[in-house]
């Protein structure tokens, strides 16, 4: 860490820190497990603002949050490079999946490559709900369309500008396809009328990163507490809590870094 903590001093305990996070982690319920343990331990509350990754990055850049938990690795690394954020860690990962109606009108269940699946959706004109909120999932989705060579979005493509939970709900209502992170899907599965229609493509890997707002840009941010939170998540205790977090018997996140650069 580039901000050494002097163990000799009595640590100042902040009353709270603000964490801007993507709606997918928020809606999954993971934070409900992590935050109480952290607060218990350090006496600092964590106020969570749930936003798309793009919004969260913007909020962080403006200094309206102390740290971020997001999933758009390329952008994160670039913003660290530009000096907006520090202390970035690959905290956990899971994968994206494509979900859709059980009838699977586009026949995705027999397809392995996500780009082929997207092509099938586009050419069949099957309804696809996009988060359209500049979130990590949204950015991933857009990159997949690009890889599939599809740039012409018509009526079948709905950009809804909402969080992951709302987007899944809308896809369920419309009996449409959508790209989601696995965690949010699992946490909402029971109240949804949607099935996984494609998973496992290496393109669907989803890495989450955690990083602090650079105190050099914003002197007011509670940098030390933010680092404590990052250290807590990266500690064996934090990583175990992440690993053991389950819904319906399934793990939602895997600790640490998933794939080598």
């Amino acid at each position, binding site marked *: 860490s580039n901000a050494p903590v002097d163990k000799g001093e009595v640590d100042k305990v902040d009353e709270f820190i603000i964490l801007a996070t993507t709606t997918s982690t928020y809606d999954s319920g993971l934070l409900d497990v992590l935050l109480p343990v952290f607060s218990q331990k350090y006496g600092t509350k964590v106020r969570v603002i749930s936003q*798309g990754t793009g*919004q969260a990055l913007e909020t962080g850049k403006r200094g309206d949050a102390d740290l971020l938990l997001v999933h758009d690795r390329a952008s994160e690394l670039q913003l660290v490079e530009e000096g907006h954020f520090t202390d970035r860690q690959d905290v956990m990962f899971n994968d994206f999946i494509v979900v859709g109606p059980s009838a699977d009108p586009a026949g995705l269940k027999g397809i392995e490559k996500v780009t082929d699946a997207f092509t099938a959706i586009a050419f069949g004109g099957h309804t696809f709900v996009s988060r*359209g*909120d*500049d979130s990590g999932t949204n950015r991933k989705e857009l990159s997949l369309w690009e890889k599939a060579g599809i740039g012409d979005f018509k009526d079948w493509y709905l950009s*809804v*500008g*909402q969080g992951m939970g*709302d987007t899944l709900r*809308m896809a369920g209502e419309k009996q449409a396809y959508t790209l989601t992170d696995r965690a949010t899907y699992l946490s909402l599965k029971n109240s949804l009328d949607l099935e996984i229609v494609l998973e496992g493509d290496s393109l669907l890997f989803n890495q989450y990163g955690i990083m602090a707002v650079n105190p050099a840009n914003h002197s007011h941010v509670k940098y030390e507490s933010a680092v404590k939170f990052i250290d807590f998540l990266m500690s064996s205790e934090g990583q175990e809590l992440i690993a053991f977090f389950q819904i319906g018997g399934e793990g939602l996140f895997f600790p640490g870094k998933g794939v080598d650069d």
Partner: protein
Amino acid sequence: MSLLKGIAEAFSLILTLDPYLTQIVLLSLQVSGLAVFFAALAGVPLGTYLGLKPQERTRFAGKLLYTLMGMPPVVAGLLFYLLFSRMGPFGVLGLLYTPTAMILAQFVLAVPIIAALTMIGIRSRGKDVQETARTLGAGRLLTAWTVVRESRFAISGAIVTGLGRVIAEVGAVMIVGGNIEGHTRVMTTAIVLETGKGNFELAVGLGLVLLIISFVINSLLYSFQGGGKEIA
């Protein structure tokens, strides 16, 4: 982004008729306009009818209207969501996340406002107008028309208040409309989204348009109310 620079850019978006912004504004006007149009068709006769009844005998209806007038938009949104969701009783209609659903929700929000304010307006003078028309030999239809015409300022005020209220609300349209780009994205939901995304020029631009529309609506309202008073 500095506030001033944002406003300047927002103005240029408005003046160049940025297509994304224009389309959202037009959809807003269309949805709220239709909702209020139908709400006026229902609310004005209802309010006129109640306004002509003795106040004692419409105590319950009056209270009910006032309560419904205060219906929080998010609650109306939730209600329509549950009704129109695929699991809900009207799910088969497939109305959720359509402009129709938004119009319905705003219609429900606007009817009590228009009816209640019409009722109050009619009460102040409607009974006398009705009796005067009748002493002069007017039939039912002419009497009703005279009552409405004599309270035109109050009624216009009621309709305009309804329009102002629904065009500015975000709770119901967000829940039942879903903020789908090009389909159900209106000014208010777009402002929330674009503010979140940090597109402040767009957010401010939309905010300015909404503010200008509110300004026009409220100028109208003020002149209806002031006008009503001055011409006595």
